[in-house]
């Protein structure tokens, strides 16, 4: 079985500080990491490989040269092969353009490696853009079935079944392979690299694919291929602090609430 995991390198949002005077995020010195949901997707793939050593796990990312660090990180925790898609013409791509590029990259990697991907895993959304678009759009471009926000998957008999947490509990759905599944948080944590795998990853060759390698339609990538337009970005105004009612009993709390609402003329 061959699995492709799509990776995005994002800023470590836990390390971002906000300049409250200028109302901007301070991005200087913020390290880049592999998007957390993508690490769950990769760990899920590597666990499938643990159970079935014939499985090969590939990772791909679209991004600038520094995404090589993310690829090395993935190789150190179990990915067999990593590909970068890097080309200036892809700058400013939105989610639609990105998924177009990734779908072409998936096909190109299949051709180069002489494999077909049975399963494509993505994180359900990225910590920076938070859109959750790329996985589903990638499935559409490839014309594969898709399952989103899975917390657990099993692959058996040409099918993938996935557990999707819902507000009420969870549902289990299945799709025929090849399929795209986006992963939310799993019950297990991604593994650590070891000193040995880390050093091996440092020495691994990481092929770089360009727009030309993917035979892309120039109109579909970069700013030109991106229908989403950002009108403006702003820091949302903070809501004023609410009022917490916590009297000794529920009844007293209810009385206080109705009194307040009544005083305000709401009821």
């Amino acid at each position, binding site marked *: 079985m061959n699995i492709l995991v799509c990776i995005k390198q994002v800023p470590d949002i836990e390390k971002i500080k906000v300049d409250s005077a200028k109302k901007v995020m301070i991005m200087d010195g913020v390290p880049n990491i592999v998007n957390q949901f993508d690490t769950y997707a990769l760990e899920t793939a590597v666990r499938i490989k643990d159970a079935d050593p014939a499985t090969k796990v590939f990772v791909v990312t679209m991004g600038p040269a520094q995404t090589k660090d993310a690829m090395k990180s993935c190789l150190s925790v179990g990915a067999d092969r990593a590909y970068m898609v890097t080309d200036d013409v892809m700058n400013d791509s939105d989610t639609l353009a990105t998924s177009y590029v990734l779908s072409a990259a998936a096909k190109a990697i299949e051709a180069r490696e002489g494999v077909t991907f049975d399963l494509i895993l993505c994180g359900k959304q990225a910590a920076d853009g938070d859109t959750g678009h790329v996985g589903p759009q990638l499935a559409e471009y490839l014309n594969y079935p898709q399952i989103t926000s899975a917390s657990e998957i099993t692959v058996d008999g040409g099918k993938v079944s996935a557990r999707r947490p819902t507000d009420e509990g969870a549902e289990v759905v299945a799709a025929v392979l090849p399929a795209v599944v986006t992963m939310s948080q799993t019950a297990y944590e991604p593994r650590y690299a070891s*000193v040995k795998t880390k*050093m091996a990853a440092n020495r691994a060759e990481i092929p770089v694919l360009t727009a030309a390698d993917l035979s892309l339609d120039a109109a579909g990538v970069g700013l030109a291929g991106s229908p989403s337009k950002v009108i403006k970005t702003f820091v949302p105004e903070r809501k004023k602090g609410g009022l917490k009612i916590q009297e000794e009993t529920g009844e007293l709390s209810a009385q206080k609430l109705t009194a307040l609402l009544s005083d305000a003329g709401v009821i």
Partner: protein
Amino acid sequence: MFFNDDHNDIRALAREFAEKELAPIANEIDQNDEVPQRIYDLMAEMGFFGLKIPEEYGGLGLDTRSYVCVMEEICKKSIAASLVMSSCNSLSTAPMLLAGTEEQKQKYIPKIASGEEFMAFGLTEPGAGSDAASMTTRAVEDGDSYILNGRKCFITGAPFAQNTVIFAKTSPEKGAKGITSFIVDMSLPGVSVGKHEDKMGLRGVATSDVVLEDVRVPKDCILGEIDRGFITAMKTLNTGRIGVSCQGIGVAQGAMDEAVPYMKERKQFGQRLADFQGLRFLMADCEARLNAARLSVYNAAYMMDMKEDATKAASMAKYFATETGLDIVSKCLQMFGGYGYVKEYPIERMYRDARVLTIFEGTSQVQQIVIAGELFGR
């Protein structure tokens, strides 16, 4: 200047491990007096136990600086968690690497590198600390074996070790030149461990006596040549010094990392502690001395990696980094006032942990003897 990309990546890996896995439980390790097995399993999987162990014996065969990077990061959060790994990379394996037969190396070292087994180091005795050559443990030849009698004390990991390297006198009349080292299986008849020492700090790794009563040790467990054990012991301690010096700079940095944010928050007399010039100068002093200590450790490690004679450099690093480290932890504790004296804050544990560093694996005074010996001749 001292480190390459691999070193930096190894350090980053150890830092992630220490911050995620050790920081949250460092005080728990101290209070329960136990490092969870899960932590050892993770450290073994990550390769920390075999960093310096040659590849042919199951290790990674990395240099001293790689070891320094990992030790320093782990000790920022918990020195206790570093003890077993430091031993595996020095005291547990160095005697065999220095003096063992190929068969002995193959038999014991891979299991230490993988974390399956632990080998303790039994040199110190109740009456023979810094003056190790005055030991009274005896080994008497008897057919195809030696019969060992005596008592070793303060032996780190003895209660859970499968084997211990025991130094014993085979030719008592020859003093230091009459000592032989043996690999002693802890399950042999006549071997027992005393009570666990109730230590001030470094709680979490059991330390105890090893008592030997008519223990019959087969001759194939002799490590190196007869009467040459003291040289093995001294050479082993040379390799261990760098590890303890890392514990010194690690815990000092850990203490600084606690004190600086606290000083930015804590207010007295209407201003932050960080705004009092007297305290700013005191912390500036700590920072400068920690930097010097760190460089002395890195320098000794670099010399070892360049195969230069690092005897003096390692002694100076051990002496300076542990004395300085202990003083920095003490100064940082002072910044916490009364809160520094209660167990709610990690600095209290760090201070207790740091206190042993100037004592074990060669006291500061022994380091001074070594350094002075290099200066004036012995």
